[in-house]
């Protein structure tokens, strides 16, 4: 049987002042680790939730984002007759859209941020059904009116209902606020595509993407095949949710890599903290270790015991780190979407999976910090260690 775990529990308790160095180091590292991952997770969730599995987005072949897309009005007319598109009372459910960015001051800093402005068609709420007007009303087609996402409303100056702001050469009146369920659309401004484009000197007959509602989830392939087979069209069709998932990859990867580097550097420090704590534990308890070995506990038992102790310390550190960052969950922040160069608000998203990852990371640091001291403990010469004072 191994050395009883109560020995480690009470030893950590008895020497808490020494253990606390390692606990704080590991807690800090895990906190940063979880915070960075939750930032990436929040950004990704916000973008991915913008897409619907019932919608498809159509862009010029080769375009990597809406910002680089170009779809003419003639193309839109052809698309309206393709199979697989859901139909509403006013015809096919598709919205040709103009996407651009406008500099609007942030309320928090007063500095300009690039806000995504989207020109949409009047039936857009039938296509993006998770979006609801929560204050005011929808803009009226043909009028210089806009609706703003709930994050845009609280983040940027002047985007309150009843206010008028200049977008390009036209002044638009804010007539409503919409809730897009925490997706990227919440940071956008929407208006009539036929007015938004010309306001920025863009031709009235040129859009950047077309989003359409599929007749059924199985209709995507039918629609894709039809578009591919049509010699007049040179377009890429993607499920909307996949498009936004891809959109999130660049910044998510960047945050994860940067977060990984920061957490990695901190982890090195934390591991040294754990090493120091455990080496001093071994040093202070040389006689106890030698006694247990004299009684018949073997080297592997001693190694296991000290690794368990290191794991215990790191687990406490991990737990504290996780608890410390929990208040960040849901906290809204903003970042530049590197695909569209627009500012996007999103919330830290701390999931149980991330917390588990944080604790596993802490335990990993514990093993790294505990193994060498544990091996040293097991290899102390018993006869001389027994007489240590």
């Amino acid at each position, binding site marked *: *049987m*191994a*050395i*009883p775990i*109560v*020995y480690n529990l*009470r*030893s950590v*308790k*008895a020497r808490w002042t020494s253990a606390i160095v390692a606990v704080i180091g590991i807690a800090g590292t895990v906190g940063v680790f979880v915070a960075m991952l939750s930032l990436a997770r929040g950004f990704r969730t916000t973008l991915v939730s913008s897409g619907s599995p019932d919608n498809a987005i159509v862009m010029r072949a080769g375009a990597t984002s809406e910002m680089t897309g170009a779809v003419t009005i003639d193309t839109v007319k052809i698309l309206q007759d393709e199979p697989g598109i859901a139909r509403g009372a006013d015809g096919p459910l598709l919205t040709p859209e103009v996407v651009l960015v406008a500099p609007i001051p942030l309320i928090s800093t007063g500095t300009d941020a690039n806000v995504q402005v989207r020109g949409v068609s009047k039936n857009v709420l039938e296509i993006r059904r998770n979006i609801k007007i929560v204050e005011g009303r929808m803009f009226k087609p043909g009028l210089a009116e806009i609706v703003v996402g709930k994050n845009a409303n609280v983040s940027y100056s002047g985007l309150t209902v009843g206010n008028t702001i200049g977008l390009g050469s036209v002044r638009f009146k804010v007539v409503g606020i919409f809730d897009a369920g925490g997706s990227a659309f919440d940071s956008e401004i929407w208006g009539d595509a036929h007015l938004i484009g010309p306001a920025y000197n863009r031709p009235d007959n040129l859009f950047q993407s077309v989003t359409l509602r599929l007749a059924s989830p199985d209709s995507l392939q039918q629609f894709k095949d039809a578009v591919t087979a049509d010699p007049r069209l040179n377009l890429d069709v993607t499920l909307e949710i996949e498009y936004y998932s891809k959109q999130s990859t660049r910044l998510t990867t960047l945050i994860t890599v940067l977060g990984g580097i920061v957490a990695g550097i901190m982890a090195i420090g934390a591991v040294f903290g754990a090493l120091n704590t455990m080496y001093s534990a071994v040093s202070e308890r040389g*006689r*106890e270790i*030698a*006694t*247990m*070995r*004299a*009684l*018949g*506990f*073997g*080297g592997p038992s001693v190694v296991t015991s000290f690794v368990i102790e290191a794991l215990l310390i790191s687990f406490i550190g991990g737990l504290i780190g996780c608890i410390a960052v929990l208040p960040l969950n849901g906290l809204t922040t903003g970042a530049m979407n590197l695909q569209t160069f627009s500012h996007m608000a999103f919330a830290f998203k701390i999931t149980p999976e991330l917390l588990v990852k944080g604790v596993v990371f802490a335990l990993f640091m514990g093993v790294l910090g505990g193994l060498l001291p544990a091996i040293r403990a097991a290899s102390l010469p*018993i*006869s001389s260690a*027994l*007489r240590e*004072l």
Partner: protein
Amino acid sequence: MIRVDGRSDSSSLIRVRGINKTYSRGGEKIQVLQGLNLDVDKGDFVAFMGPSGSGKTTLLNLLGGLDVPSAGSITVDGDEITHMSASKLTHWRARHVGFIFQMYNLIPVLTAFQNVELPLLLTKLSKSERRKHVETALAVVGLADRMNHYPRQLSGGQEQRVTIARAIVSDPTFLLCDEPTGDLDRKSADEIMALIDELVGKYNKTILMVTHDALVAARAHTTLHLDKGVLIEAGKSAQPVLAGGAA
């Protein structure tokens, strides 16, 4: 019957033949034990005396399998321990040796009960069987009412009693005592020695003890002196023992 001439038959419980122990210190070789012989029978109580650095503790460490001799052999109850692997030696110690240390060497974060239970964790006894054994051992040393006390809550004499309970709880083949009264006042030392006497007299335990205290040594069946790595019986010169040599 305790002999140091290496001429005993093979029935001895502990049989030491021609052991040497040499340490290297700063490139210099120091011979601590020189061709030492010893035979101890079951139930014997032997005390080792000698000046500091004479090799008493080294001999105890070798007998307890905590260290290995540079040459020679040690056989305990038919098992030659000098060539055992470290792992086998660890198992052997758990089964055959009970240690009583000068500084008690109790684990400070464990209660008296848990300290005494430690050797039993290496056996296949169930939890209830372990409890029974621990309670018996603590009762033998007169500390049945202190089993939930931590070492810091006990006097030096009581701590040493717990150490004795820990040493006997697994009923080892023999006990090794390294200055068991060295850290105690006279009264406590007498109490501990009375307990050790009882272990020998009542429970027929085999005990090998290192001490500096002639009064303590006087309670053993035989006192052996170690001087410059050589064992001699009390009152005899080193010469006959050296002449005895290895069998």
